[in-house]
């Protein structure tokens, strides 16, 4: 009947969530290091190359302008023959303004034709040079100086710088990538160790909880066992008490009751045959006293052990008690009983049901100031595991405050509750001031033994 609590999973199966911090960081640092490498490797060589080419262009432009100016002066002196002496002039300037980047200086006439300067004619490869020109103007443009420069040296130096800065960028990118990664790997190890310690702690804690739970279950089971034994002892005590009461009742009924009855009969005979009035009166009074005593004995016998229950059964005993109650108190009692004639109901349970009816009517008579009481007693689900006696007592009296009654510890209601619980039943009391009261009791036909 007791359901075992579900066992927790073994502690070893609990896995703490792990976060791949290294992967998380690597996913961001790798591309960032790549961009850093690229920027560091390219920016300086690129800037050097751009500035170097600009410088070469500027120098070539200066050379072209200088040559153009000198040729202009020569052309002003010799308007026709200047172009035939230009080679020496250009060679002189080339010698004086020697620059490693200048590959060749050429001169074109006003039609764009090449003026021979005594050097090898330009080849197709010279089209790859960087050309800067300056016009020779005497009234109109009579010629143009072309200075062809190469950027090979600048490009070679830029490549060397690129190599150096690539190494520098690789170093920086490597530091940016590896230093945080090493740090995060160490931190991850720390986290792992903490998680392992936490897992160990969790395992220990859960083992302790399981151990304590087991101890609690054992204690609970022990309490339940003791409760059961107490209930059984109580049941046996009640049964013994009821048996003792029935024995006392039988003794009182059979011995004292029979004796008193015989005395009464004798007294009646004595009163009928008494010679004197005083003797007859005394006999009649004694008969009355005997009647009173018999009535008292009957009541005591009835209270000790409802013999009527054994004689008539539960249904008729309850009906008789209801009739007696109505006759004695003048309160209308409606008693409905059903299914109580079938066998299988424990004597103690029947006694408890009868006693509860008695106590309920006693309470109605003492406190309810009711005009009517309805008692409904029947048996539910006979033969099934839920086979039980169901009792409802409803009065139309003044009712009462249930909490207040509980605080005062009214013995009548508490006694009914204890009696119900001794046989494993349930009791439900509903009452409110001015609205009467209702008692609902369910008793198993056999006392519950857990």
């Amino acid at each position, binding site marked *: 009947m007791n359901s075992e609590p579900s066992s927790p*999973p073994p502690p070893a199966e*609990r*896995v*703490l*969530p*792990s*976060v*791949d911090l290294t*992967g*998380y960081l*690597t*996913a*961001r640092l*790798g*591309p*960032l290091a*790549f*961009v850093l490498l*690229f*920027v560091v490797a*390219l920016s300086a060589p*690129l800037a050097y*190359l*751009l500035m170097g*080419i*600009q410088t070469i*262009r500027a120098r070539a432009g200066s050379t072209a302008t200088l040559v153009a100016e000198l040729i202009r002066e020569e052309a002003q002196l*010799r308007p*026709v*023959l200047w172009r*035939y*002496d230009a*080679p*020496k*002039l250009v*060679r*002189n300037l080339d*010698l004086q303004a*020697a620059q490693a980047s200048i590959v060749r200086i*050429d001169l*074109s006439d006003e*039609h*764009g*034709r*090449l003026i*021979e300067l*005594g050097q090898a004619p*330009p080849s*197709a490869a*010279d*089209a790859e040079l*960087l*050309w*800067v*020109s300056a016009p020779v103007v005497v009234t109109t443009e009579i010629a143009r100086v*072309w200075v*062809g420069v190469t*950027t090979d040296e600048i490009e070679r130096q830029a490549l060397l710088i690129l190599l150096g800065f690539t190494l520098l960028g690789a170093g920086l990118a490597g530091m940016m990538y590896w230093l945080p990664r090493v740090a995060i790997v160490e931190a991850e190890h720390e986290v792992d160790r903490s998680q392992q310690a936490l897992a160990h702690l969790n395992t220990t804690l859960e083992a302790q909880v399981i151990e304590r739970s087991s101890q609690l279950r054992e204690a609970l089971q022990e309490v339940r066992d003791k409760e059961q034994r107490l209930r059984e002892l109580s049941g046996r005590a009640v049964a013994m008490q009821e048996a003792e009461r029935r024995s006392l009742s039988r003794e009182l009924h059979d011995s004292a009751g029979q004796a008193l009855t015989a005395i009464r009969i004798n007294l009646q005979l004595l009163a009928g045959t008494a010679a004197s009035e005083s003797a007859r009166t005394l006999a009649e009074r004694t008969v009355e006293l005997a009647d009173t005593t018999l009535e008292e004995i009957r009541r005591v016998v009835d209270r000790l052990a409802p013999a009527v229950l054994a004689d008539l059964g539960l249904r008729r005993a309850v009906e008789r008690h209801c009739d007696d109650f109505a006759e004695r108190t003048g309160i209308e009692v409606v008693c409905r009983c059903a299914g109580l004639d079938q066998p299988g109901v424990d004597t103690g349970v029947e006694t408890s049901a009868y006693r509860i009816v008695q106590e309920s009517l006693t309470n109605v008579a003492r406190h309810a100031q009711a005009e009517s009481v309805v008692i409904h007693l029947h048996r539910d689900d006979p033969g099934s595991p839920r086979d039980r006696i169901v009792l409802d007592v409803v009065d139309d009296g003044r009712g009462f405050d249930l909490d207040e009654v509980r605080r005062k510890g009214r013995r009548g209601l508490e006694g009914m509750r204890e009696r119900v619980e001794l046989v494993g039943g349930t009791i439900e009391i509903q009452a409110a001031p001015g609205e009467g009261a209702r008692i609902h009791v369910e008793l198993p036909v056999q006392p519950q033994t857990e």
Partner: protein
Amino acid sequence: MSADAPQTAARTGPSSTGRMRGVAWAAAFASAAVLVVLGGLAIRWVEQSPMPPFLAGEPPPAIEPNTTPKPANLLRLAGSGSNLPLTRELADAFEATRPWQRVRVHESIGSGGGIRATRDRAIDLGLISRPLSPSEAESGLEAIPYARVAVVFAANTSVPVRGLTRQMVLDLYSGEMAYWADGSPAVVLQREPGDSSHLAAHAAIPGFGPIDEQAWAERRFRVLFNDRGMQEALLATPGAIGLFDSGLATIQDLPLAVLEFEGQRAREQAIRTGSYPLFKDLAFVFVRDDPDPLVAEFIAFVFSAAGQRIIHESGYVPIDPPLRSTFAHQREVGPPEPP
């Protein structure tokens, strides 16, 4: 529920990280690509330059011969500076005998300039102090030597030596001899490559050519680009020495020390016999097929007795005209009478 949490984290964590890694790498590659593209554009921008028309692939317009009309009595001469003093003497004598003729001798434009100017008809008669190259000879030009002049090592008067050996010349131009015997610095002056005096020295002094060219390539010495510049530098620079025309020194009576070479002075006889090996021939160059009439007349005058005398008196060695040439014939029979 709590048991599911780690599984959920484990399920969503790696995919989230992988997605982030993909996005980050894509951004990194995009940044690198942008950097490369921008760098390439910047380089392309700074390397932009106009292409010379002679390299643009379009054929240049043909060179038209100079058709500028000139007076029929004007003879224009230009060319090597070595030729100029003697030619001016000859021109003056020519004009003296023919007052109606005008001979204009321009300033030096070099032998190459004289050849090109003759080819382009910018002048009528070119003056050269070196032989025509094969390509120049094939361009319809003809050269006629008319005088030989010694090439001498001229020095500033402060130089303490008056003669050189071949080895001294090589040591001077190779830089091994940097001081004269008195301890004063030896200052070597060079002409530009292709100069006729240096070419004559290359031909006459074994081993001199490579040393001279190397000195020029290394910019070892000061370089002058015409005879006037060399003349002024030799006069003005103590300890200076350089190759110079003896005719120029003689005709101008310059205060220069003309040094002996291997014990030989640059006298006419030594030049004629070859005992003095440094010399060069001065020549006229003209268009072979369509010479100006005045050209032939002037050349005939140079090869005449009067012309030869002027050459001789100017310190030059006259050269006979080519055999079976008009000029040789005219020298035999005399020039035609002036009209």
